[in-house]
Each structure stands twice: as structure tokens, then as C-alpha cells.
């Protein structure tokens, strides 16, 4: 099938005035589509649009070229108002080959009338297999009402660079700049920032390619998209969740990040390794996951403020040491950037399947705090709270984010820092006369932390069962008592928590409960349902261990309660699945246990964030008559 022909003499461009639009740039790995998407997203945010970007990352580190599985790039949802999730479908795609475009088509990522700007050199290839693949792809794509616009990207780029693989992304950025009316000066600033470690010549070449794409779109593309902008009156920052975690760690006064590289957590340490030392901190890349957490615990024991960051497989390796931190009551913050599992699973893809493993995955009775930020902004602020709680309760605090938050980019209000966040972890005054290593308050289980460097602060740290002086003790009474003391701390923390706020009406037919990064998609789905007259509300939990208080009372006001999670659960009606053997969503298991309410669940593990429309469909499925109002 021949390539569809480009518009010969463009008519005045058609202007689409829309409240939001979703764009994707997809390519083979290493062609720079992600950089193009990141710059487009950042500039849109700076111009006053709401933005949410998601990285499209192949599961393989170096997939072969021109295969659907190798699709790499960015999806950017741009809106007039704040954007909280990646939305449903994409309206405009720039694809560097037809195979990566097919990948997006096959996962139903594209709107039925999407505009597809696709590199057309493949249609003119000397290789008959490539031409055949192109034709087959065009045929497959023709099943939808896409508008396919061929773009001779490579030919155009060759007028400026010898290797178009290193420049096509800036040409594509130029196309987007013209179509979406982006501020070229802002884009140039972003390019300068992106290539700050390269030469002036590299910058100039990229700008030339940008302008080439801009003018090509001017002459050849007959559509413009206008999304109203509302520049913020407050200073904003634009970053992804891993950068927010890193910044939060600096702001919270952390002094050591001990880690071992693991996708998708590694970029936290990449970010920190560039800036942490300027703030007196350090990144320690240990020889493995176990050593990393050991170093963090050791530093904390000595009075430093330390954290470790990992993902599922890394957390599995750290398990014994996590129990040690809990047993020795050594403050520790662990960030788990969740990915698909089990085992090495889906390294680059989002999932929320580590919840139960995080809470219950340690051997023995190992009570500790588990929290989850729901937005990228919360990724920053949660680190301040996590540090404070770890030190106050002398325990492990796990922070669960996921690949969606880790790589998503969105603007948010620049945090106002407070020097109290940076306070020393403890008063180094001499230890009180007679104070023991674990002077447990019998009611609260809390004890004042002491460290060996303080006068009178010496004690032997042990993971064995011990008494309040940290002396090894196997007596049944002591083990019962010390276990109770460690456990009591969670009850005390829960007594300090406030009941969560319901999004929407406080009573109704269905309450959708989520945790972590699903907040934006759930609330958007609930908004749509409520517009349709459905009595649906939402609740997003941040504390998972202990759970936030008052849930049973909140649940009572709804006819049904359902969790929405990115972890696997059986659907009723699946073969062999019964009420008794149904494997439920992980949060729903927790909620059923804590409230004795029959909490239903809807979970999917597509390796991508949930779409509001899918959640809406699930909501309708739980309501009488399919949610018909």
C-alpha cells in the first residue's frame, strides 16, 4: 500500500479549541522521543497548562528496532486546568516508524479520530520486507478513523545533520511547537538546559532542527490546537515523582541515601548524586540491595538520617534487614517504587502489587508504618513526614510509590521549605541517669532513642529478642512484652491520624477506595459518574499501616464499597472463582479485615496506569442496571 500523500497546498489551518489534548511521541529506543516529550510537557506547564506526562518504556533495555514491543516515548496530556492522570486516549501521535505506532494502536491507546504524524521513509525503503511491513501496518490502522499524515522526517533532518537518528526528536518538537502554539523561546531554554553538558554547537544544531520542524508544520500541517493557558500566580516546579522524592529527602534533612540500582527507582539516586553533596548529604551505591539497607540502618543507628530506595525485587532481598530495623527500633525510611511482579516481572511498568508484601512481608511479627503518596507533589512532602515518623516512633517507615508517579511529570506549587525539617535527629545531650536502651512506655510502647555517641548512650544492638536494656533475653514474658511494645506504636499512631476525607458526597450507592497513584484517574472517573447522576464517591488512603481511622463509619454510609487498584484480583464469574476462593485486591483484603465490611474490588495489571474510562466502566458494572441513572 502506498504511503498516504501529504497535503499539497495547505488551506488555512483548522483551529481546534479544546480544554485538553493528549499527545504521544513514539520511537525506537534511543531516538530521543522521550526528551522531545519531556521538553514539550515542561514548556506546556511553564506556559500555564495542566500537564501529566507518562513515559512509555519498553520492557527490554535494548529491544530490536522496528518492532511494536520496542515502542519508547512519552504521552503528554495537556489541559486548560490541572491534569491529574494520563487520561483515556491519545489525540495526536508523532511516530518515528509505523511499528511503534501499531503498538499504541493495539493497546487501544489512540482515539478513533486521532491524528497520526508518521515518518514515511519506510514506505520508500529498498527493503521489500520493510515496505511490506509498512503496507500491512497501514492496512491494520485503516480499521479506525485515524488521520494519517506522512512526514519525511529523515529527509528533512538530513538537510542539517548527518545522522538523523540524533535530531529527529527536535524536528518532532518543532512540529508540536507549531501545532500547539508553544513558546519557542521557552523551548529553546529547555533545550539549553537539556544539553547543558554538551557544546554550544550541539545546542545550535538542535535549535536549527527545532525551527526546521516548526516551519515544516507551518507549511504542511493544516491543523492547530489551542488549549487555553492559565499561568499560575504562585511559583511552580515541574518534575517527576522520583525527582520529588529526591528533593523531599534533601528538604527533610536526610543525610544518606544508600541504594543499589533498580528500575524504576534508580533515577532517585541519579538525581541525588548530582545535588546531594551540595547539601551535605551523600549517595552510597552499595554492592547489592542487602548491603544498601544495612548501610542505611548502620548510619541511622549512629545518629544519622538515612534512607534507602528500591523496587520489588530489591525489597525482597532487604527483607531480613527490614526486620532487623524493626526489632532494633532503628529509624529507617524505605522508598519502594513499585513495578510489575512477581520476581523481576515488569521492570519498567507500573503496578501496585507490593502492598501486602510491604506490610506483612517480613518474618516474625514486624509492625511498621506504610504510607503512599497519591500525587507527585505528595512524593516531595511525604519524605518530611516519613522521616519525622520514623524517628518519633523509632521504626521503619515504608513509602510506596510506583512507576507511574516515578516517571510522570507534572507541575505543582513550589514547596515552602522550613528549617525545622532539617533539625538534628536527636538531642545529643548526655543520656539521662538510669535511662535504658528501650525505656518502653507501657501504654504507648514508645521509648526515647539513644545513640552510642552520646555520653551514657552505649548499648549492644541485637536482632535477638531482648529486654529493655537491649540484653538478649529468651524469656517468654520478655518476648511477649517487647512484641506488644513494638506493636502498640501502630495503635498509637492511628490514634493521632484523622479520618480521611471523602471525595464527593459522604453517602451514596458506591464508594471507590484507592491508594497511591490512582487518585487522579479514580476521581476523574467519579466526576464523570456523578455528572451522569450516579451516587458515587471516592476515598484515597495515604496510610496503609496503620490504616486511617473511621473507615467503618465512612463505609456504612454507602451501599457498596469497592477498591480500585493496579494489582491482580479475580473477577467474580471467572472459571472456578467463588466468593470463598476469590483472590481479592490487596487493599480490599486489608479493608475487609479491618472493618468487616464486604469490600469489593476491581484490579487490573495492564502494565500502564489505569484509564478513567476503564474505572468508570467498572463503577457502572457495580451499580444496578449498569449504572444507568
Amino acid at each position, binding site marked *: 500500500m502506498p504511503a498516504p500523500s501529504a497535503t499539497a497546498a495547505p488551506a488555512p489551518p483548522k483551529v481546534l479549541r479544546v480544554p485538553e489534548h493528549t499527545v504521544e511521541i513514539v520511537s525506537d529506543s534511543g531516538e530521543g522521543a522521550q526528551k522531545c516529550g519531556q521538553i514539550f510537557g515542561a514548556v506546556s506547564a511553564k506556559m500555564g497548562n495542566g500537564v501529566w506526562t507518562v513515559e512509555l518504556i519498553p520492557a527490554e533495555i535494548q529491544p530490536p528496532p522496528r518492532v511494536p514491543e520496542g515502542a519508547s516515548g512519552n504521552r503528554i496530556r495537556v489541559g486548560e486546568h490541572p491534569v491529574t492522570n494520563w487520561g483515556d486516549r491519545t489525540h495526536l501521535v508523532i511516530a518515528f516508524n509505523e511499528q511503534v505506532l501499531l503498538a499504541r494502536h493495539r493497546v487501544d491507546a489512540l482515539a478513533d479520530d486521532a491524528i497520526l504524524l508518521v515518518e514515511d521513509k519506510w514506505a520508500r525503503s529498498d527493503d521489500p520486507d520493510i515496505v511490506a511491513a509498512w503496507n500491512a501496518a497501514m492496512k491494520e490502522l485503516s480499521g479506525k478513523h485515524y488521520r494519517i499524515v506522512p512526514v519525511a522526517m529523515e529527509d528533512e533532518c538530513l538537510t542539517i545533520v548527518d545522522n538523523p537518528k540524533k535530531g529527529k526528536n527536535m524536528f518532532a518538537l518543532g512540529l508540536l511547537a507549531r501545532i500547539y502554539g508553544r513558546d519557542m523561546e521557552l523551548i529553546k531554554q529547555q533545550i539549553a538546559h537539556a544539553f547543558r553538558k554538551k557544546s554550544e554547537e550541539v545546542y545550535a544544531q538542535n535549535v536549527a532542527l527545532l525551527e526546521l520542524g516548526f516551519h515544516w508544520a507551518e507549511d504542511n500541517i493544516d491543523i492547530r490546537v489551542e488549549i487555553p493557558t492559565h499561568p499560575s500566580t504562585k511559583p511552580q516546579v515541574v518534575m517527576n515523582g522520583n525527582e520529588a522524592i529526591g528533593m523531599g529527602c534533601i528538604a527533610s534533612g536526610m543525610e544518606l541515601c544508600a541504594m543499589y540500582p533498580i528500575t524504576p527507582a534508580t533515577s532517585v539516586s541519579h538525581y541525588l548524586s548530582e545535588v546531594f553533596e551540595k547539601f551535605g548529604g551523600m549517595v552510597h551505591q552499595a554492592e547489592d540491595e542487602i548491603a544498601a539497607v544495612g548501610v542505611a540502618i548502620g548510619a541511622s543507628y549512629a545518629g544519622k538520617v538515612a534512607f534507602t530506595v528500591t523496587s520489588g525485587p530489591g525489597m525482597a532481598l532487604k527483607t531480613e534487614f527490614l526486620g532487623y530495623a524493626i526489632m532494633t527500633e532503628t529509624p529507617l525510611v524505605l522508598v519502594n517504587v513499585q513495578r510489575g511482579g512477581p520476581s523481576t516481572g515488569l521492570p519498567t511498568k507500573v503496578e501496585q502489587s507490593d502492598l501486602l508484601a510491604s506490610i506483612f512481608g517480613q518474618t516474625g511479627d514486624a509492625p511498621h508504618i506504610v504510607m503512599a503518596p497519591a500525587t507527585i507533589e*505528595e512524593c516531595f512532602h511525604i519524605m518530611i*513526614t516519613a522521616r*519525622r515518623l520514623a524517628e518519633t516512633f523509632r521504626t521503619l517507615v515504608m513509602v510506596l510509590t510506583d512507576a507511574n508517579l516515578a516517571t510522570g511529570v507534572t507541575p505543582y506549587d513550589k514547596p515552602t521549605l522550613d528549617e525545622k525539617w532539617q533539625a538534628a535527629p536527636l538531642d545529643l*545531650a548526655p543520656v*539521662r541517669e538510669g535511662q535504658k536502651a528501650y525505656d518502653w512506655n507501657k501504654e504507648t510502647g*514508645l521509648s526515647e532513642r539513644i545513640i552510642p555517641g552520646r555520653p551514657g548512650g552505649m548499648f549492644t544492638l541485637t536482632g535477638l529478642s531482648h529486654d529493655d536494656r537491649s540484653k538478649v533475653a529468651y524469656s517468654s514474658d520478655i518476648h511477649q512484652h517487647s512484641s506488644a511494645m513494638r506493636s502498640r506504636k501502630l495503635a498509637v499512631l492511628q490514634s493521632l491520624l484523622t479520618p480521611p476525607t471523602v471525595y464527593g458526597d459522604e453517602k451514596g450507592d458506591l464508594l471507590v477506595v484507592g491508594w497511591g497513584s490512582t487518585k487522579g484517574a479514580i476521581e476523574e472517573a467519579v466526576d464523570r459518574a456523578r455528572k451522569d447522576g450516579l451516587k458515587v464517591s471516592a476515598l484515597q488512603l*495515604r496510610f496503609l499501616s496503620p490504616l486511617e481511622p473511621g473507615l467503618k463509619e465512612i463505609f456504612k454510609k454507602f451501599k457498596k464499597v469497592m477498591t480500585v487498584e493496579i494489582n491482580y484480583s479475580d473477577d467474580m464469574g471467572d472459571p472456578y472463582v467463588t466468593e470463598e476462593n476469590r483472590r481479592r485486591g490487596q487493599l480490599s483484603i486489608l479493608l475487609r479485615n479491618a472493618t468487616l465490611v464486604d469490600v469489593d474490588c476491581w484490579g487490573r495489571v495492564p502494565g500502564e496506569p489505569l484509564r478513567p474510562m476503564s474505572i468508570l466502566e467498572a463503577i457502572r458494572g457495580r451499580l444496578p442496571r449498569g449504572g444507568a441513572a
Partner: protein
Amino acid sequence: MPSDPRVAAALAALAKPIAEFRASVHGALQQADSFVAAHSATATARAAGAAVGLGKFADMHIDAGKFAALFPASQPAAPDAMAALERAIKVLRAVTAQGDALFVAKVTAGKKLGATIDAALADAGAAFGAIVIAELVRGGRYNAADHARLLDPSEFRAWNRAERRFAPPLVVEVDGADLYAGALLDFVDGREKIVLVVRGAAPPAPLVRCVTPGTYVLQTVDGADLEKVAGFEGPAIAALVPQGAATFAHNPSAGNETWQRLSVTFLPPLPTKAVGGFSAWQMGEDVKMLADLARTPFAVPGAPGAKSAPAIGANDAVDRLASWLLDASGVSGTN
């Protein structure tokens, strides 16, 4: 601002130990202030403080009032302990308020060098007692009977090991005629750093009497190497001397033997006139001792037919010193 630019240069060279001492005082003052503030805070203020400490994430999820009630920001303290803490805070503030003046002393007419240094260090050292009081109160260990005297003036000789390690450095302006170097030995301990800025006529090698295996000693005209005094992990004495005086450095890290550690860059002729109470003979003894300490312990015999017998390493300062000794003793070479 000090009138003598050499004082400013000495202070600049001592910036690191000065900053360390200031950080100790500032940190103790901050902690003491926080302790007092936490004690006097109302429940509302404590809740507000807890809310700030917990951060924005906690705003909607943690009851800061309950949190503050459960975790008081400070331990309870008895009234006499709080009174002692207030006094300690006053001392710390007074020490802080002196700025650079805390680290500069001047030997005035009728005063002796040792007494001047003693008084200046006692002034700064008042902070040590105050810091200890603040720690004791915060740790709930303050006992008036045992600890009240900690705020009394305390001279260097009463400082303990830790205090001597954190000793404040001192720049002392002194007339050459008052430079009784023996007085400095009382302060050679811990990490004490003293830099003398010598005015007027002075003995040529007074600091040679301070040379001990573990003490960094420097006599310099132009201030070269003063930063090494500041960076040395032990006691150090330096003097910015007038032109014509001996210049040398004794660096304990440079070797096991005195001649290895001592580097003499200029050795003046033996003095012929008295300076103040120092006779020419006394000062000459200093110069000779400096030469003696720096002398290479053996020499290489001259090659047959050679005009002179060069010492080992003919170009270094020690060799120049050996040549001078030969000249001074009338035995110049083998001719």
C-alpha cells in the same frame, strides 16, 4: 576592624578553627533556646510547631495537637535547672556577641603575654561551661550542687581534654620586647592555635623555645604557611615577626627527627644588641639552638681535591644552615 593588617591576615588564616568554635557555641545556643522555647510554649504553639515539623503531607492526616501532646519537644526540667540554663544562654550570647574580637588579644603595657592569653582564653572558654550546663539541663542531669560552678571563669589550665580539642584560636598582638616565648608553653595542648603579631624590635628566634615533637611552630615575616598552622591537627604556635628575624617552620608530620621536621628559611646573624629585657647573649642562644636543632646529623666528606665538603642535599635549607655553622665556628670547608 583590626588596625594592623597582619591581624586581619592571621584571622583569615584561622578561619576554619574559628568557624568550628563558633559552630559549637551557635549549636549549643540554638538547642538551649529551643529547649526554653519548648518549655514556655502554649499547647497551641506546640501544636503549630509539631505541624510544621511533620510537613504538609501530614496536614490532612495527622492531628498535630495530639501529636504535640504525646511527644513534647523537650523533657521536663526543674526551676533551678531552667535558671541555670538561662544563665548559660546569657554566657553563650555574650561570647557570640564578641564576634572576631573574641579571637584577638593585645598585650598592653604592664601586662604579661601569658596572663593576656590566659584571660582571653578564659573569656572564650566560658562558653564551655555554658555548653555543658545546657547539655546537662536538656538531658535531665543538672544538679546545682555539682554543676553550678561550671559557669565560673575557667582558665586554660582547668580545661579538660575535650575542651582543649575545641579550644578557640587566638591572635595576640605583642611588642617584641614582651615576647617571652616560655609563657606560650602553658597553652601548647589539644588543638590550641596561637598566632602572635609582633610589633617593633623583637628577638630573632623566640619561638625556637616552643619546638617540641608534637607542636607546629612557625616564624614568618610575610604570613606564608599560616594556613598550615590552622589546619594542623594538634597545638600550633606562630609568630608574624619583623623583617630580619629568623624564619622557620617546625612541622611534626615531616619526620621523626627534629632536623627532619625543622625547616629554616632564614637564619639571622647573632644579635649584638639587647631588646627590652632580652640580652644579646640570651637571644643569641635562641639562634644557636635553632641552628643546632636543624643541623643535619652527619656530613658527606668532600671528594678528593674538592674545595669544600658539601652537606647532604646541598640545596636544601638544612645544608645552608650547616654552611652557616661552619662559617660561624671559623671552620669553613676543608681549605
